[in-house]
């Protein structure tokens, strides 16, 4: 090989390579020599719209074609010749993706070659012989032909004009308008006559006359136009005829048979004149009438106005004069007050309109008539074009003309029809007749197997040697409705761009010639003609249309078979946005659409719209997605009516009732109406709740607000739930860093400890394997502490009075509990047992003995998920509560004492409720297991029991002593099998915090979690709008309601207790339940007060803010507690006294209280900083609370900066609670409770002890005061005093208090005490309800229920 330099290489390449330029080629090189590119579109031909090809690519293609001498590729317009739409609609070759598994449909099969009969017109087709096109070729009329002589050209012109003239004549506008005019005038006459009788015409009649005159005016105008245009037309024809005549004379021979006959109809001059004069008179009259109406009446109106104004002015002036006179006497200053002068210039007397000038108008009318109408005496002319002139025979014409005629005779033409680009037949060649017509008159049938795409017709002119294509054009593929039975011959125009010039008389084509001798500008005409033909589908013997079936559905703009077009032309062009036909018409006319474009055929009516003066109007309906209907599965109406579709749709929308329906019935009739009842009831209840609460506007507002918030949050959640991150989809190991590597190495080196048991995690059950009844709640009741004991029994002591004195404050002597106890049973003080109830099922432990019993029993409760849906998202929403009740079993002798049968002892067992503990299912579900010692909620007054036992076990500060007292149960609760709690959704919420701050949050959290992964710490939380907010922004001192702080010293523990009580009375609703486990939302205090519900953190934040306002040193404490799990408490620091407040219950504990529910301390937060507990110990007892110690607490902000702006409001507004509403509510609750208690005892008579009621009512009113003060010793002294009035009664009852959430909550609380279960036939009930109203609709409900057995009666 030899090395060539680069330049040499380039040189060589230049020789061998052709790189087509991407610049546009010269126009001249694309068309025939010495011809100019034509622009068919400008000449009024339809060219179609070509697909968009990059201009650069077109240029390259054209350059390449030119290079290879392919001039023939270009059309006359200099563009590459192509079909109107060269894009094939179907792929010619199906896509094959793998060679070894070839679809048999497209497999290549060897077929033996067959000789093909090319003469056959009929397309052979084995597949189907059904489709047959019938093409009727009639004749061709040339409008212009290169062999035409000048006379022929003129004759062709005159023929066209005459055709038009005949059309107008046929429509006979003149007679029509004349008759109309006459009729109108008649009508006016009669109307006027009737009016003449009636003196004062009504407005209606007047307006009718006016209408008629207007109409007459219009018709007159139209008549004039019509007549003048007809006269113009005639004039033109006659001119043309004159030209022909002069040409014939000039050349001395006739070439055409055209002859114009002008027929004159003689008329009666006098009659005409009369008519004419009447017409003039009429018109003058009408104009005068018009003048009267339009100008005179307007003038009169103006005059009237002028008069009025003038009058006013005059009056004004008089007044002014009088004033002026008075003024002259007084001060002179006011004399020249210009404002008082009314400018007379404003009042202009309207000009009188020029009078109606009869003479001028008459002259005008006459002139008009002379110009536009047939004048009197003028003959009526009608034209007739005949073909009677003899054509001069060839021998007697000059040689040039003879040559032309000879050439004509030699020229024969035929048509070739191509179907889908393939020739199907040719007509016989025909010779041009002397009037340039080709008569074929032949019908061809084409059987087609291919999809009809195009039907092309080529006009071939056979010259001396060979045939040449003069012109090509396309015929339409008819729609299937057009068949040979109903088809009509149609006209399709064609043109040729061939340049021809002749030496003989023929004027040629595309070359200039002078048509008339006196003309200076030469004319140039192209060969032009019309084919009269028809295309239709054949009919078979049975009259069936032999058209392909799918043709109707095809959307093919060229074939015109688009079914839409036949229905609605406007839709077909895609202009569905034009709903107004008028504006459409306007648009069509303005946009100058090509009328020859078949696409626009539908709009042609709009183009001609205004010709006849009437607007073309389509149907006046509104179109909106009119195609949608065709895509609809079924109609919308049916869709909503059919239950099956309704079910499917509701399931798709994830409506809870339907979400887990499987095997939805297949047939409509299998879907029962009952499927919807639950759902519909829920919808109805939603409304009912609102109705019920209708008493109170606040509550409705709150409900609405909560619903809105919930909807917004759920919406946000559902949209974000469908956004997956890579971690949700792909499980991928993180790249290990040094720390984890080191840890794993250390692990290897660790000594093995085979004796140390390793906790095995229980296998978590998958939701799909769960069925009804397979899930149970296990409650392991271990032991109880400090259970209230019965008070000493006094049954056998006859002197009850003395007992009262002895009893004192603490011993409720008049209460007779546990009477008739056996001597053996006296040895214990209480017989407690535990009952766990969940979802209507209750199980109990065995009865133990003594105030510190040990049961160690496992209770099993069945759990059924709503709708049997054990999906995590559904279980999250379960808001059932596990109740753990502590009862005392009292056995009493029911045998009447005076019976003689001493062998039979009947005892009655009664369960006395001592207290209860509630555990929401969501907590169990989230935490998996609940393990610990919990304080039982015991009513403050437990009649017949000693609540207080000497608690001197712990050396506590005196003020906290009573808090640590109480009854405790050690229980362990779990689910069997363990359900997998829903993974907390990792949601990226928007935030308005600073980006660097957010980044710091992430690193801080990561750092904290790495050191102590189990400690609860938060930096940002999600507010109610769904945005992340830094937690410190929630902290801001806020004033509590003034009622709570006044009267007492703000710094005493009593005030704090009061505030805590107030906060705890705001109902507690877990976010898990409300927001279905989506996220933990933090609301600000004003939102919290408005919603009146929240969970731990809302309560804690509110309490913290109140405490801060009181000047306390307080922190928000994030930690874990039983049973809540991760929770928020409030820590107050006061002289080394650390008190932990549970804001949602109002209880407080010293940090060293062993029964404190708080288990670990994770972080402390105030308005300036977050401190994470980095001490090794996290139990509240052992934690050092000095946050300034860096080694104990890790601060979020290294330097305590100024607090960030808070999102809390500056102060809270506490609307006073409506007292009348509270009174109504008390009534309602009491009534409901009484009804319910009666209904719970269906087999017993329920009597109400009225005096008991009133006593209890008095007691209950004072309870709130005492509890909120937490004085510790519940003084029941005066109870006894009041109860003594009832006499000797046995009394069982409890006061209960709870935040008001609804009547049902109160009812269920009462029911859980089982007071109603007392079987004693003599029992009477007493009940009192009190609602203590705090500001802002925070209500504490107190219910005191008691069962009273009148001992005296019993004894008698």
């Amino acid at each position: 090989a030899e090395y060539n330099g680069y330049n040499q290489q380039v040189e060589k390449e230049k020789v061998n390579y052709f790189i087509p330029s991407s610049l546009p080629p010269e126009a001249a090189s694309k068309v025939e020599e010495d011809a100019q590119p034509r622009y068919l579109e400008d000449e009024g031909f339809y060219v179609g719209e070509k697909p968009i090809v990059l201009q650069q690519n077109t240029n390259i293609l054209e350059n390449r074609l030119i290079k290879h001498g392919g001039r023939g590729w270009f059309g006359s317009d200099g563009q590459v010749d192509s079909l109107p739409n060269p894009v094939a609609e179907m792929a010619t070759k199906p896509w094959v993706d793998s060679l070894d598994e070839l679809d048999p449909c497209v497999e290549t099969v060897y077929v033996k070659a067959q000789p093909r009969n090319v003469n056959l017109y009929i397309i052979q087709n084995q597949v189907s012989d059904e489709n047959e096109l019938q093409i009727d070729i009639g004749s061709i009329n040339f409008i212009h032909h290169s062999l035409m002589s000048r006379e022929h050209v003129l004759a062709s012109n005159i023929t066209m004009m005459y055709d038009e003239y005949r059309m107008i004549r046929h429509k006979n506008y003149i007679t029509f308008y004349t008759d109309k005019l006459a009729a109108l005038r008649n009508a006016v006459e009669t109307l006027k006559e009737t009016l003449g009788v009636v003196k004062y015409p009504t407005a209606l009649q007047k307006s009718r006359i006016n209408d008629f005159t207007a109409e007459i005016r219009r018709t007159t105008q139209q008549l004039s136009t019509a007549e003048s245009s007809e006269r113009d037309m005639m004039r033109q024809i006659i001119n043309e005829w004159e030209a022909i005549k002069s040409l014939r004379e000039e050349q001395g021979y006739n070439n055409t048979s055209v002859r114009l006959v002008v027929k004159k109809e003689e008329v009666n001059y006098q009659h005409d004149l009369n008519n004419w004069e009447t017409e003039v008179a009429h018109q003058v009259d009408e104009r005068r009438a018009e003048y009267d109406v339009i100008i005179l009446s307007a003038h009169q109106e103006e005059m009237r106005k002028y008069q009025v104004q003038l009058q006013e002015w005059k009056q004004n002036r008089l007044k002014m004069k009088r004033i002026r006179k008075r003024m002259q006497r007084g001060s002179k200053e006011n004399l020249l007050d210009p404002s008082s002068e009314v400018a007379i210039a404003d009042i202009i007397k309207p000009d009188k309109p020029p009078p109606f000038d009869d003479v001028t108008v008459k002259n005008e009318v006459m002139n008009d008539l002379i110009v536009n109408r047939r004048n009197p005496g003028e003959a009526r002319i009608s034209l007739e074009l005949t073909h009677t002139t003899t054509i001069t025979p060839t021998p007697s014409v000059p040689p040039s003309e003879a040559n032309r005629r000879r050439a004509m005779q030699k020229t024969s033409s035929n048509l070739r029809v191509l179907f889908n680009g393939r020739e199907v037949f040719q007509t016989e060649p025909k010779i041009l007749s002397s009037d340039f017509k080709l008569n074929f008159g032949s019908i061809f049938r084409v059987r087609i197997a291919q999809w009809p795409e195009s039907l092309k017709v080529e006009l071939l002119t056979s010259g001396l040697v060979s045939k040449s294509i003069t012109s090509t054009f396309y015929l339409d593929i008819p729609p299937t409705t057009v068949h040979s039975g109903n088809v009509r011959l149609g006209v399709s125009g064609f043109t040729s761009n061939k340049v021809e010039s002749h030496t003989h008389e023929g004027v040629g084509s595309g070359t200039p010639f002078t048509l008339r001798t006196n003309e200076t500008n030469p004319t140039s005409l192209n060969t032009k003609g019309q084919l009269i033909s028809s295309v239709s589908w054949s009919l078979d013997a049975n009259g069936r249309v032999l058209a392909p079936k799918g043709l109707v559905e095809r959307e093919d703009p060229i074939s015109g078979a688009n079914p839409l077009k036949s229905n609605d032309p406007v839709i077909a062009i895609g202009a569905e946005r034009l709903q107004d036909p008028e504006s459409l018409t306007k648009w069509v006319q303005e946009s100058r659409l090509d009328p020859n474009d078949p696409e626009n055929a539908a709009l042609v009516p709009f183009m001609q719209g205004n010709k006849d003066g009437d607007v073309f109007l389509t149907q006046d309906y509104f179109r909106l997605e009119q195609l949608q209907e065709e895509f609809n599965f079924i109609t919308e109406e049916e869709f909503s009516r059919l239950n099956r579709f309704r079910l499917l749709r509701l399931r798709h929308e994830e409506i809870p009732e339907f979400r887990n329906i499987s095997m939805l019935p297949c047939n409509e009739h299998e879907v029962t109406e009952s499927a919807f009842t639950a759902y519909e009831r829920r919808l109805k209840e939603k409304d009912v709740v609102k109705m019920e609460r209708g008493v109170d506007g606040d509550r409705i507002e709150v409900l609405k607000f909560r619903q809105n918030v919930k909807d917004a949050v759920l919406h946000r959640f559902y949209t974000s739930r469908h956004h997956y991150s890579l971690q949700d989809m792909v499980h991928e190991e993180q790249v290990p860093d040094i720390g984890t590597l080191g840890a794993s190495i250390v692990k290897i080196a660790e000594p093995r400890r085979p004796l140390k048991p390793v906790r095995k995690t229980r296998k978590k059950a998958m939701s799909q394997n769960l069925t009804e009844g397979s899930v149970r709640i296990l409650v392991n009741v271990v032991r109880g502490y400090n259970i209230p004991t019965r008070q000493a029994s006094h049954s056998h002591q006859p002197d009850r009075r003395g007992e009262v004195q002895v009893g004192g404050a603490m011993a409720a002597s008049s209460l007779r509990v546990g009477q008739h106890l056996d001597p053996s049973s006296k040895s214990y003080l209480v017989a407690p047992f535990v009952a766990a109830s969940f979802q209507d099922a209750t199980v109990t432990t065995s009865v133990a003995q003594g105030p510190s019993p040990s049961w160690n029993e496992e209770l099993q409760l069945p759990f059924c998920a709503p709708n049997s849906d054990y999906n995590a998202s559904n279980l999250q929403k379960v808001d059932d509560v596990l109740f753990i009740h502590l009862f005392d079993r009292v056995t009493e002798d029911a045998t009447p004492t005076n019976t003689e049968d001493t062998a039979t002892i009947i005892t009655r067992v009664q369960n006395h409720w001592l207290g209860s503990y509630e555990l929401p299912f969501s907590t169990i579900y989230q935490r998996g297991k609940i393990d610990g010692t919990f304080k039982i909620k015991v009513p403050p007054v437990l009649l017949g029991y000693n609540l207080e036992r000497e608690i001197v076990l712990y050396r506590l500060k005196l003020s906290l002593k009573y808090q640590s007292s109480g009854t405790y149960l050690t229980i362990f609760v779990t689910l069997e099998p363990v359900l997998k709690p829903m993974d907390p959704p990792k949601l990226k919420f928007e935030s308005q915090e600073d980006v660097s701050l957010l980044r710091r949050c992430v690193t801080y959290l990561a750092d904290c979690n790495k050191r102590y992964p189990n400690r609860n710490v938060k930096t940002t939380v999600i507010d109610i709008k769904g945005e992340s907010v830094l937690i410190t922004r929630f902290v801001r001192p806020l004033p509590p309601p003034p009622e709570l702080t006044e009267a007492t010293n703000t710094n005493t523990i009593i005030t704090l207790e009061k505030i805590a009580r107030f906060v705890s009375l705001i109902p507690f609703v877990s976010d898990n339940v409300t927001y279905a486990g989506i996220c933990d939302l933090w609301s600000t205090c004003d939102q919290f007060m408005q919603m009146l519900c929240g969970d731990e953190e809302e309560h804690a934040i509110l309490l913290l803010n109140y405490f801060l306002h009181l000047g306390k040193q307080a922190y928000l404490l994030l930690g874990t507690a039983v049973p809540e799990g991760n929770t928020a408490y409030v820590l107050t620091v006061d002289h080394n006294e650390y008190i932990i407040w549970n804001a949602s219950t109002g209880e407080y504990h010293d940090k060293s209280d062993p029964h404190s529910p708080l288990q670990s301390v994770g972080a402390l937060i105030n308005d300036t900083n977050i401190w994470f507990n980095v001490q090794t110990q996290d139990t509240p007892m052992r934690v050092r609370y000095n946050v300034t110690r860096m080694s104990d607490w890790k601060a979020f902000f290294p330097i305590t900066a100024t607090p960030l702006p808070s999102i809390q409001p500056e102060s809270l507004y506490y609307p006073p609670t409506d007292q009348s509403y509270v009174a109504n509510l008390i009534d309602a609750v009491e009534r409901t409770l009484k009804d319910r208690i009666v209904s719970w005892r269906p087999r017993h008579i329920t009597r109400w002890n009225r005096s008991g009621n009133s006593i209890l009512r008095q007691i209950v009113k004072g309870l709130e005061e005492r509890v909120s003060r937490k004085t510790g010793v519940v003084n029941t002294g005066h109870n006894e005093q009041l109860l003594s009035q009832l006499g000797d009664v046995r009394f069982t009852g409890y006061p209960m208090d709870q935040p008001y959430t609804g009547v049902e909550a109160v009812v269920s609380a009462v029911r859980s005490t089982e007071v109603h279960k007392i079987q004693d036939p003599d029992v009477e009930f007493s009940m009192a309800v009190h609602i203590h109203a705090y500001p802002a609709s925070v209500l504490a409900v107190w219910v005191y229920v008691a069962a009273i057995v009148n001992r005296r009666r019993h004894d008698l």
Partner: protein
Amino acid sequence: MSSGINPNPSVFLLMLNGQIESGEFPDFDELYCKFSFHHGQDWVVTSGLEEGISQITRRSRDERELFVWNFPLDVTYKSTNPHGWPQLVVSCYGPDSFGRDVVHGYGSMHIPMVPGKHRVKVAMFVPVSTSKLQQITSWLLGRRPEFVDPKVVAQGEGREVTRVRSQGHVTVTCNIVTRDLKKLGYDLQPSDVTNIPVATMT
């Protein structure tokens, strides 16, 4: 007694029996596969195994280099709604060059709707590591990225966040029998073949 043909059925049945025949996975020596069916809410398996795991097979020692399992599939579905038509999800696992069990591909196919015998080639793919470093560590530690749930390959949701690489093919043959589909108005046969206008001209 009736012959068991219900003139007005309320469910239709779909029966599949066939086998996971073989797989083509270059660069591996031993493979086993797991399969499971994924179906919509209105479908119930009346008989057959919904999930299964095959034996470990070795690559054939010929030029085809096939992994032949011939693992039978036999499942019958009952359904009321064609929505959620069952899909077969196949995932292949096998030891890598260090002998650790790693995933070698996930793939899914709809059970063919038309009765008859079908042979389906299921393309198998695995998610790829997010970075080169992770790729190396996953290779070293034998913890390749895996889908959290193999059934995600039968769903469209969330796929946009994953990047996968193709691994090979699994060939599944199945015979389909349906019952009562047409009676319930679901026509699964192709419409009359002869009436389709064929775009050929002779």
